[in-house]
């Protein structure tokens, strides 16, 4: 970053009072979307305010809490640390696209429910998207206690103490047959 860190904006910059508008084309949860947006609109705000996809939660808006995690081109990413315009041409997947159309929960969601992997639920969409991305990327996810905690380390939960979330990930892997061949 080579902007004028910690300096006031120049007179010229602060005189600019209106945002440019840029045409954004992307695919969100299978739907092709076209919108004119300001370049400084964050992807998280685009999803929530422009598209009404409020399942993506916004916690810290500085990349710490992980609540706003979505998938950009198949990889989990913080939507508060991406400009909407960066996603031009990209395929975005949010929590709204995880359960089936008939309401059947995805095995990861089912596991979170069965293992009490949430209390208030604010952080849950971020956890689910992170775990989903990890399971899709890794052919053999590391399901040791350490491996799961590493997988979850980018998301903060202030309710559960994480124990039940770790259990939910292990259960989800079982439901999805990702935990290797049956032993014994």
């Amino acid at each position: 970053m080579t902007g004028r860190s910690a300096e006031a904006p120049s007179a010229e910059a602060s005189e600019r009072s209106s945002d440019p508008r840029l045409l954004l084309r992307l695919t969100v949860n299978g739907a092709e979307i076209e919108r004119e947006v300001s370049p400084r609109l964050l992807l998280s705000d685009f999803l929530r305010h422009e598209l009404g996809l409020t399942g993506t939660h916004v916690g810290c808006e500085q990349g710490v809490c992980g609540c706003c995690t979505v998938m950009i081109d198949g990889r989990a990413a913080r939507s508060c640390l991406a400009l909407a315009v960066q996603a031009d041409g990209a395929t975005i997947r949010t929590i709204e696209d995880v359960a089936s159309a008939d309401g059947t929960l995805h095995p990861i969601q089912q596991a979170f429910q069965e293992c009490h992997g949430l209390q208030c639920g604010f952080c849950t969409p971020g956890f689910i998207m992170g775990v989903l991305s990890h399971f899709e990327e890794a052919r053999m996810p590391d399901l040791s206690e350490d491996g799961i905690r590493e997988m979850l380390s980018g998301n903060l939960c202030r309710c559960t103490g994480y124990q039940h979330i770790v259990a939910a990930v292990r259960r989800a892997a079982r439901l999805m047959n990702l935990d290797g061949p049956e032993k014994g």
Partner: protein
Amino acid sequence: MKPPLFDYLAPVSVEEAIAARARYQSSALLAGGQSLIPALNFRISHPEAVIDLKGIESLRGVELQGSEIVIGAMARHREVELDEAIFKANPLIRETLGHVAHIVIRNRGTVVGSLAHGDAAAEMPALFLATGGSVTARGPGGSREIAAGELYRFHLTTSLEPDELVTEARIPALPARTGWSFQEFARRRGDYALAGVCALITLEASGACQGARLSACGIASTPVRLVKAEEVLTGTSLETETVNEAGRAACAHVTAPDDNQTTSAFRKQLVQTLVTRTITRALARARARL
């Protein structure tokens, strides 16, 4: 909206990007955005223009060219971390990347972005110093190579000119008879470390220490080579006492004052421990490769 007003440009070639930079008094290059966008969200950065590099095909990818790993400016941390050919050529890279923030951040953040950002507490600049890499910087006047040792001036301050763009970084493959280790101490997994140490130990065929390259992050206003510790090791047979002495010698490089995270005295203790541990690990790996 959180970020301040800026013009947004998405050039499709390096030439276009450099021309765009020249048109503004201040511009910021956007690669992965994992440092720039928080800075914009906090409004501690006010560039007149943000130049997004995502559309520049030539900046993508990472590859092994002979004995060098060439990392394009848009190659994401995670892409480099998971690349098997790169892992075989220099396993220190994957080991170090495992400590860079979280997987979700590494999915977006770029190696070259981290090197050019120059955070004194970041892991990759320390790796860059220890391995003796270089970056290629392109500006209006042409292209130049900057060696790792010449890049870092201060925290978040490099010898790059404001109109330049780093197109790629080069990191040498692991030399023969060399062992490696990166270890750090952070209060929470994924946080910037209070201190991190990178060690490369090269043995002679006899098993004596031919050379050592050590570096650290989080202990000074830039990433630093731990030259005083390297000097202790070179030419010795790396007995336990010598390794411990190198740990003590490395403390002299800690110049970070007491801050809101910890004290300078604790950082010295950390560096001593981390240097001893990384040398021991690197040495075992070097011996296994004799």
